[in-house]
């Protein structure tokens, strides 16, 4: 089926093919007769060998041979010698079949089945494997079988590691060998095997090794992914850390009870409008964790009992693991000025997905001020269109005058002991940066630029809390711009990476601690992707209009969002809006002038919770008032996305999907909606 040249069939070819077909057909018919009648004579078994030699993919014949072996092993007159002979016969048949097609699943499995019987010499197998791997070093069947043999022989990981080294020295362009090396090294690290206890000793050698592959032929992909793994091993700390929070440490939070924005951008406080009598505490970790609860995170304040606090993970479906955790703190409706202390991880229990404990207990504290509802403001018409007013926004690009220390600093300073231990990390990165700069001075290659960009980003990320700026941002942005020209096939990949760097670079200097802004304008930046959420937790009103966003993945972390504009972007489906379902405070949403309804293929269909992914039950049938009117097959996405929203105002014009029929469906799904495309609803 693969790699055969296309040629017009000639009559003599067709005749030959037909004759071969008849012969094979006859063989097969005879075989079926033996198989269905359970005949396992020597002659019958020999016929199956003939069939498998011509067609090793005829799986039923392999099954038959297993039945024949078992039939034979159950005979009273069998002895160890005759058993070995029978099984050796099977191994011979497999070898013949593999000669025909060394990728035959059936043949390899049959061999494994025979070896598992325990009567055959396993040492032979390594020799056989050597032959196959010399013929094709990328044959994954052979590599898988090798893993089985190595385990049966109890070969050490170190020995197998040496084998991968030999294979790589024979030919650097051997992704399979590099892959196996990563599996073995990873196991040795996990086991803390002798000689592999300290990554700082092992990784520099591995870097030397991989350089030979990458620098010999930068266009050969075999080493790229191994290098990326080495980088990950260099920068990733095992224990999870708290990356940021809202409220931030040392901040003042003003809770305002009404819906009207009253210009408190000029006040020294972060004002949060709360019509629910509570506000969220958001914890953003540097990797997904589980076990965040009122034992592992304690909230001490005068007005609430810690045990009453319910911490929830912001995760898909019902997973108990997430990077972002939220709890809602109830506040009394009367005047209040109080300090809240949040202690994270003083009790064990917060664990990463790889099983590492949160090991740097931290504490943050902030002040809460409650401003009760003012009588006057209730006169303002609730239906008044709340626009994303110009003056409310801190304009992107206008840097704040004061020197601002991000609240994050204060958390990290407590993690002092980690920094001295990580000098080897800085050294390793610095060395790599030097090597790749040198490569790029000789060869203008894509992997050189991409790796250098990744190295510089990693270096900055590791230095971040101490240095106040991301030193290499400009260079990284330029590298990605170069890549967008150099490798046009992957233009969008580099653009997405670049968007995130852009966001991280500017949001450096924003703080929720002192200035109190709550609005952020990020429009007209050619952003194709959102990121840097750990720095954006404070945002209540966000203008992302006039960008190129086709995804808002991760936006669910911005728990304070009440107004969001995604006008004039490239959202392609309703399911792309799923991250917004977790934004309980969202009241105003503008998704006008996107591409919803233009495309028949939905690329967020499975990233979204729905009946198709079995992460939601048949809630469809329960709400009769909605579903009886709604043509469900055509509108299930709208139902799933919007039914939990609490919007006052929605703009959807300029999307192919937004015809009158669809808008009336939306109104039924969201009875609390007050305004749709500028029109007041009754």
């Amino acid at each position, binding site marked *: 089926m693969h790699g055969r*040249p296309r040629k017009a069939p000639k009559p003599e070819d067709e005749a030959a*093919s037909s004759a071969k077909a008849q012969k094979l057909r006859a063989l097969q018919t005879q075989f079926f007769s033996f198989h269905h009648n359970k005949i396992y004579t020597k002659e019958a078994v020999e016929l199956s060998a003939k069939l498998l030699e011509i067609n090793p993919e005829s799986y039923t014949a392999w*099954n038959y041979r297993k039945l024949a072996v078992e039939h034979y092993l159950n005979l009273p007159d069998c002895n160890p010698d005759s058993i070995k002979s029978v099984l050796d016969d099977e191994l011979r048949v497999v070898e013949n079949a593999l000669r025909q097609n060394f990728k035959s699943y059936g043949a390899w499995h049959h061999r494994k089945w025979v070896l598992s019987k325990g009567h055959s010499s396993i040492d032979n197998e390594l020799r056989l494997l050597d032959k196959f791997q010399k013929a094709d070093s990328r044959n994954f069947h052979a590599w898988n079988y090798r893993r089985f043999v190595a385990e049966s022989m109890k070969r050490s990981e170190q020995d197998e590691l040496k084998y991968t080294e030999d294979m790589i020295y024979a030919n650097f362009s051997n992704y399979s060998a590099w892959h196996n090396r990563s599996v073995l090294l990873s196991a040795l690290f996990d086991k803390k095997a002798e000689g592999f206890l300290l990554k700082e000793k092992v990784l520099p050698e591995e870097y030397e090794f991989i350089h030979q592959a990458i620098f010999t032929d930068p266009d050969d992909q075999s080493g790229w992914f191994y290098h990326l793994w080495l980088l990950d091993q260099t920068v990733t700390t095992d224990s999870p850390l708290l990356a940021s929070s809202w409220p931030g440490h040392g901040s003042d939070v003003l809770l305002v009870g009404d819906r009207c924005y009253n210009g408190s951008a000029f006040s020294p406080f972060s004002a949060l409008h709360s019509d629910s009598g509570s506000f969220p505490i958001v914890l953003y970790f540097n990797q997904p964790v589980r076990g965040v609860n009122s034992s592992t995170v304690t909230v001490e304040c005068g007005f609430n009992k810690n045990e009453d606090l319910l911490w929830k993970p912001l995760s898909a479906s019902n997973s108990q693991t997430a990077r972002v955790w939220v709890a809602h703190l109830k506040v009394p409706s009367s005047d209040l000025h109080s300090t809240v202390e949040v202690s994270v991880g003083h009790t064990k229990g917060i664990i990463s997905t790889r099983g590492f404990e949160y090991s740097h207990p931290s504490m943050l504290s902030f002040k809460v001020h409650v401003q009760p509802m003012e009588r006057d403001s209730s006169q303002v018409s609730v239906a008044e269109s709340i626009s994303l007013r110009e003056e409310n926004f801190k304009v992107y690009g206008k840097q704040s005058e004061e020197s601002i220390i991000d609240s994050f600093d204060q958390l990290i300073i407590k993690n002092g002991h980690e920094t001295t231990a990580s000098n080897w990390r800085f050294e390793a990165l610095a060395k790599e940066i030097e090597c790749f700069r040198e490569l790029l001075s000789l060869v203008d290659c894509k992997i050189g630029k991409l790796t250098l960009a990744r190295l510089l980003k990693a270096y900055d990320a590791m230095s971040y809390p101490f240095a106040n700026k991301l030193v290499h941002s400009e260079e990284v942005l330029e590298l990605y711009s170069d890549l967008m020209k150099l490798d046009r096939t992957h233009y969008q990949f580099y653009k997405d990476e670049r968007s995130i760097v852009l966001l991280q670079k500017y949001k450096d200097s924003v703080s929720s601690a002192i200035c109190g802004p709550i609005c952020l304008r990020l429009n007209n930046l050619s952003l194709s992707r959102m990121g840097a959420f750990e720095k954006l937790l404070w945002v209540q009103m966000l203008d992302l209009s006039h960008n190129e966003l086709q995804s808002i993945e991760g936006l669910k972390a911005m728990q304070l969002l009440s107004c969001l504009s995604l006008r004039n972007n490239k959202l392609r489906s309703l399911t792309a809006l799923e991250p917004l379902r977790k934004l309980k405070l969202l009241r105003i949403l503008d998704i006008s002038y996107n591409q919803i309804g233009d495309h*028949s293929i939905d690329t967020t269909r499975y*990233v979204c919770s729905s009946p198709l992914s079995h992460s939601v039950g048949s809630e469809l049938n329960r709400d009769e008032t909605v579903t009886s009117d709604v043509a469900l097959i055509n509108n299930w996405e709208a139902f799933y996305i919007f039914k939990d929203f609490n919007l006052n105002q929605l703009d959807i014009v300029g999307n192919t999907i937004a015809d009158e029929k669809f808008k009336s469906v939306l109104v039924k799904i969201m009875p609390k909606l007050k305004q749709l495309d500028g029109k007041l609803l009754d």
Partner: protein
Amino acid sequence: MAELAVDKHVKYILAVEKNKDSFESVVMDHLRMNGAYWGLTALDLLGKLDSVNVDEVISWILKCQHESGGFSGNIGHDPHILYTLSAVQVLALFNKLDVLDIDKVATYITGLQNEDGSFSGDMWGEVDTRFSYIAICCLSILCCLGKINVEKAVSYILSCKNLDGGFGCTPGGESHAGQIFCCVGALALTGSLHYVDKDLLGWWLCERQVKSGGLNGRPEKLPDVCYSWWVLSSLIMIDRVHWIDKEKLVKFILDCQDVENGGISDRPDDAVDVYHTYFGVAGLSLLNYPGLKAIDPAYALPVDVVNRIFFSG
């Protein structure tokens, strides 16, 4: 740019279905059930499913069902999970799932789940993540996914996740686009895509696109039209398909057509077959090629067929 020679491909598929006497056909005899799925799904995407005799197909399918509930690749062969899925998929295409004793099929599949959550292909015990995908997809279509231990099935699949973000056939197995499709598909169908590092895997997958615009299945291998499905559907499920150049891929697929005799091959100017014809057409559907029905990337069935299963009745 070339166009999709729809009529030629339809003719080719129908001819292959009828021609049972060529050597190719006899050698593929044992996987005719897969061939039926490839040919018929391609016909449906091309809007021509009504060109076949439904009753004949269904009667043949049912002849391939064994006592155990599983289906074989053709009459006379042994049952296997591979052909059980294809049989169910074809019946779904024709909206004839009601001819099945669903419990019987489900029993066959649940019986193949092992202690560690993995699935064997049949009673002989070969384990592969392909079979995990098949079990999950098949029971999902039959709306009885809860009959297997989903949690263990998912954890086995995750044990096959590699350090490059991809997946192999068994733990430690090298990442390969076909296995990645199976694992990502299985995780998608079980609402478990949050376990996938989409950026890491997305980069590995998008680097499958080579200079010619075609996609290969793993690093330093030749491009092949079938990867237009395995790689592409994986990218779509994790929402990273914009990381490849879609137009170049469309051009590559169209260049693999035999515009005179119909059919699509693995590479330009190679011999065509039904397998690559299906994957080429399915790939074009995922790339929004005009005139084709939309295909669902996880179920590998037309979207209207999937919607019919979940949202009507």
